[in-house]
């Protein structure tokens, strides 16, 4: 259940999750190239869905944030469902992968906030009532922790359920639960992306009144 070291390069241990991440990268790039040649409409559907979802959540045009958030969505979705292929494990069932993704979100939130308002303005918006600054810092850190643990916990719990049922009644009884774990993985990819969009949107408009969410922005 826990990731094991396959081989080491220069003293760096390489785990099986890293190898399946490499396989996954090749799979995504190859699939994108093949689809781009044969069925470009499918790629357009994916990009349109991501753009609509992100701009609905953020309440502003999603084009500047689509590369980051769309990459997160596609990576996590493929990473969560790739565990059903034999000899491959989900990269997200090692806690280091969700932690890395959550740290990327944590840094990019501040990057986009500073880029939108400037350093001084962003810091002022962060500490708008000054005594709330410690709570704000704790909130920033704990949201990174919760992003990590939500993804990791969901994936590891569904895998554990499948493993336990498989040890009790093998081969055909766990199949609905495998389907459920696929559904959970896709839903977690959606939720991770939407939460990252919410956090970036909050950093962009921390001090302004919240705009009406009913206005639909499309790009």
């Amino acid at each position: 259940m826990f990731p094991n070291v396959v081989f080491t390069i220069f003293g760096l241990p390489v785990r099986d999750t890293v190898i399946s991440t490499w396989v996954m990268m090749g799979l995504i790039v190859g699939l994108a190239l093949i689809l781009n040649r044969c069925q470009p409409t499918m790629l357009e559907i994916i990009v349109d869905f991501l753009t609509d979802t992100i701009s609905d959540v953020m309440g502003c045009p999603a084009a500047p944030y689509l590369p980051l958030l769309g990459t997160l969505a596609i990576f996590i979705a493929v990473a969560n469902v790739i565990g059903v292929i034999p000899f491959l494990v989900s990269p997200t069932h090692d806690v280091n992968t969700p932690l890395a993704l959550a740290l990327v979100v944590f840094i990019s939130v501040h990057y986009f906030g500073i880029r939108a308002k400037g350093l001084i303005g962003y810091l002022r918006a962060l500490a708008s009532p000054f005594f709330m600054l410690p709570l704000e810092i704790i909130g920033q850190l704990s949201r990174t922790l919760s992003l990590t643990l939500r993804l990791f916990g969901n994936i590891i719990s569904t895998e554990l359920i499948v493993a336990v049922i498989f040890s009790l009644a093998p081969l055909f009884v766990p199949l609905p639960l495998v389907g459920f774990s696929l559904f959970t993985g896709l839903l977690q990819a959606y939720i991770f992306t939407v939460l990252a969009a919410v956090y970036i949107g909050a950093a962009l408009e921390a001090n302004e009144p919240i705009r009406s969410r009913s206005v639909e922005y499309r790009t």
Partner: protein
Amino acid sequence: MSEMDSGTLITIVTIITAGFGIALGTIAPAMAEGRAVAKALESMARQPESARNIRTTLLIAMALLESTAIYVLLIVLILIFANPLLDRFF
């Protein structure tokens, strides 16, 4: 039963704690998610035109509520699979 070494005692306490912890720790998030879904369904039935916004907000809120249950699950998994107290005795 007369002589119980500390490893056995810690294992027993760990199992009992894990069972009660996961049972009690999932009650509150389950009830909270149930209330959220019920309210969202009421609002969607009353105003079907805003169902799209409600669904997005509902999914975010469910994820935030579910993370409390995930914390409990994480503690229970640590207790069962990687108990730091057992490593101290063995």
